[in-house]
C-alpha cells in the first residue's frame, strides 16, 4: 500500500466516513421520527418538524390510556423474571463451571437449543402445558379463595396471570444467562474460594462475601441481557395475558396501533418513547459493571 498520507489513503478514509455516516443516519432515523412525533401536536407517518410542541401525547398515555398500569405491569413482570434469572444463573453457572459431571456439556448445548428454537414454534405445546398447570393452580386456589379467586389467579395463574408470564420470560432468558455465568465463573480462579476456606469462611459466607462480589460484573451482564430481551418480548405477553388490567407496554402499544379509527401517530410515538426509556436506563446502569476492571487480585 502507498504511504500514510497519500491522497489515495485519504480517499479511503473519506469513503469509510461517508459509509458510516449513511449507516448511522439510517439507524437513527426511526428514533428521530419517534422523538419528534411524540411531541408533535399533529404527528404524521412521515418525518417532519413538529407543527407545534406539546406534551399532550405523553399526558394522554397516562390520563386517557392505562399507561401507568401497562408500564407497571411490564416493569413488574420483566424485573421479576430478571431477578429470577440472575439468581438461578448465578447459582447454576457456578455449578456448571465447577462440576465435572459427564452431562455438563450435553446439558449446556441442550439449553442453548432452547434459545435457538423460535419460540413461536413452541407456543402451542407451551400453552397446553401452562393451561394444565393453570388448572392445577386453580384447583389449589379455588377452595379457599372465595370471591377473590380471580384476583389471586391474576397473580399466581399460569395463563392470564403474572406468575406464568414471569416464569416463561425467565425460562427464555436462562440459557444465555447460564452460559454467561458459566463462562464467567470459568474465569474466576478456585484460589479465591480456597483462600476463603482457609480464612474460615462458611459456604454462605463464601458466596456472600467472595463469590457474589466477584461475580457482580457477570451477574450484571446476564441480568442486563435478560432484562432487555424480556422487556422487548411481545409475543409471550400477547398470548398469555388477556385481561386488560394485566397488559404490558408492548401490548398496549400494539392495541393502540390496531384501533379501528385513524392511527394516532403522536400517541404511538409517545408510548414507544416511554417503552424505550427503561431499556436505555438498564443499559447505562449495567455498563458500569461491564467495564469495571476486575483484574489484579489473581495474577497469572
Amino acid at each position: 500500500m502507498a504511504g500514510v498520507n497519500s491522497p489515495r489513503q485519504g480517499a479511503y478514509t473519506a469513503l469509510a466516513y461517508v459509509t458510516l455516516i449513511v449507516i448511522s443516519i439510517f439507524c437513527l432515523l426511526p428514533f428521530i421520527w419517534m422523538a419528534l412525533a411524540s411531541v408533535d401536536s399533529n404527528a404524521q407517518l412521515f418525518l417532519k418538524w413538529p407543527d407545534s410542541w406539546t406534551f399532550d401525547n405523553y399526558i394522554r398515555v397516562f390520563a386517557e390510556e392505562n399507561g401507568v398500569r401497562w408500564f407497571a405491569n411490564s416493569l413488574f413482570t420483566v424485573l421479576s423474571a430478571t431477578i429470577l434469572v440472575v439468581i438461578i444463573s448465578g447459582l447454576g453457572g457456578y455449578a456448571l463451571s465447577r462440576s465435572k459431571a459427564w452431562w455438563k456439556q450435553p446439558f449446556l448445548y441442550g439449553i442453548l437449543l432452547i434459545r435457538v428454537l423460535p419460540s413461536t414454534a413452541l407456543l402451542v405445546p407451551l400453552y397446553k402445558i401452562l393451561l394444565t398447570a393453570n388448572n392445577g393452580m386453580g384447583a389449589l386456589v379455588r377452595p379457599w379463595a372465595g370471591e377473590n379467586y380471580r384476583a389471586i389467579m391474576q397473580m399466581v395463574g399460569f395463563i392470564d396471570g403474572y406468575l406464568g408470564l414471569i416464569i416463561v420470560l425467565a425460562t427464555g432468558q436462562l440459557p444465555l444467562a447460564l452460559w454467561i455465568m458459566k463462562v464467567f465463573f470459568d474465569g474466576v480462579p478456585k484460589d479465591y474460594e480456597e483462600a476463603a476456606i482457609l480464612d474460615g469462611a462458611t459456604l454462605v459466607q463464601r458466596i456472600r462475601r467472595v463469590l457474589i462480589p466477584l461475580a457482580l460484573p457477570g451477574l450484571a451482564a446476564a441480568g442486563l441481557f435478560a432484562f432487555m430481551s424480556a422487556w422487548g418480548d411481545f409475543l409471550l405477553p400477547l398470548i398469555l395475558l388477556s385481561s386488560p388490567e394485566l397488559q404490558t407496554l408492548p401490548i398496549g402499544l400494539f392495541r393502540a396501533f390496531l384501533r379501528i379509527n385513524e392511527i394516532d401517530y403522536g400517541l404511538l410515538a409517545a408510548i414507544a418513547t416511554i417503552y424505550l426509556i427503561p431499556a436505555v436506563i438498564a443499559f447505562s446502569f449495567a455498563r458500569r459493571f461491564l467495564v469495571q476492571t476486575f483484574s489484579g487480585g489473581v495474577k497469572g
Partner: protein
Amino acid sequence: MTTPMIQLSGVRKSFGAVGVIQGVDIEVEDGEFSVFVGPSGCGKSTLLRMIAGLESIDGGDLILNGQRINDVPPDQRGIAMVFQSYALYPHMTVAQNIGFSLDLKKVPKAEIAKEVRRVSELLQLSDLLNRRPAELSGGQRQRVAIGRAIIKRPRVILFDEPLSNLDAALRVQMRAELQKLHQELRPTIVYVTHDQVEAMTMATRIVVLNKGRVEQWDTPIELYNNPVNTFVAGFIGSPRMNLVAGSIVGNASTQHFKANAGWMVSMDGRSLAGVVGQQVTLGIRPEDIRPVASASEADMQASIAIVERLGAETYLNVRNGEDTLLVRAQGDLAMKSGETVQLAMNHAAFHLFDQSNNVIAA
C-alpha cells in the same frame, strides 16, 4: 526430643488410577523453614494442599503438633496458606483483605484495625491499606498475601510457589524478606518451589520430591554434598552436576573410572574393589573441574564447544568423544570454542552412582 510440628507418615493420594503421592514420610520441626522442591508434576503442590486440607488424604497419617488432622476442616487446622496467584479479593482493600479472616470470626472492628496495623507495619504496607489489589505492584500483592496469612497467628504457614510470578530482581528481594520474616516471627514454614536456588537459600531442610516420592530429605548443604541418587545430584546445584556413564576398571588395589566415551580418571582414596567391572555413573560438579596449563596435571583433555564468559567466572562446555561436560572456572578466561583444553578434577568431590542410580558409598 520435642514432637515435630508436622508429621507425615505413609501419606498417599491418587487422582483416579494415578498415584500422585505414593507414601511420603517426613517431619517438620517447630519453627523450621522446610522447602518441598521437585520438577513440575512431582506432587509437591498436592502434598502442600493436603497439609492445608484442600485435598483429601487417601492413606497414611497427617499429624500436626501431635494430633491427627486428616479429617479436620482446613480452617480449624491453625494453618495459613499463601497462594501462587496470591488470591487477593479484588473487591476489597488491602486492609479488608488482611483482616478478612478476623472479620469472619466476628472480632470487634477496633481489634481488627489494631491487628491489621501490626501486620502492615511488619510488612511495610501501612501506606497502602486503602488501595485495592489492582493498584498494587507484584511485590506489594505478595506482601498483602503474606499479611493475610500471618494475621491469623498460624502455627504453620504454607507457601505455594509464592515468588514464581515476580521478576528476577524482585524475587531476590522477596527471598531476603521472607527469611527476615521467618527469623522475626519463627513460624513453621512449608514452602513449595521448583526453583532449587530458592530452596538452597531459604530452607533449613529441603525435601526433594520426584514422582510422588521423597528422594532425599536433609539440610541444603548436605543435599549438595551428599546426594543419595542421580536425581537429587542432578536437581540440586546450579549449574547442574555432570553425570557421566562409564564403568569401574582395575584390580583389587587400584581402580579407575572409565567413561563409555573412552577417557579414564583414577578413583584414588576409595575402596571400589567390590564394583570393579560394573556399570556406574560418575557425578562431578562443574565447579570441581578446572582448566590447567599442562597435560601432566590434567585428568583429561577435551575440546571446547561453547564458552560463556560471565566476568567473575567462565562456563566452558567441553566435549570428549560422546561426553559433554560443563566446567565452571573461576575468573575470566579468554578461551575460544574449538580450542583444546586440559582439565583437572577434584577427586575428593566425585560422586559415584550404581546402575539403579543410587549412590555408592566411598
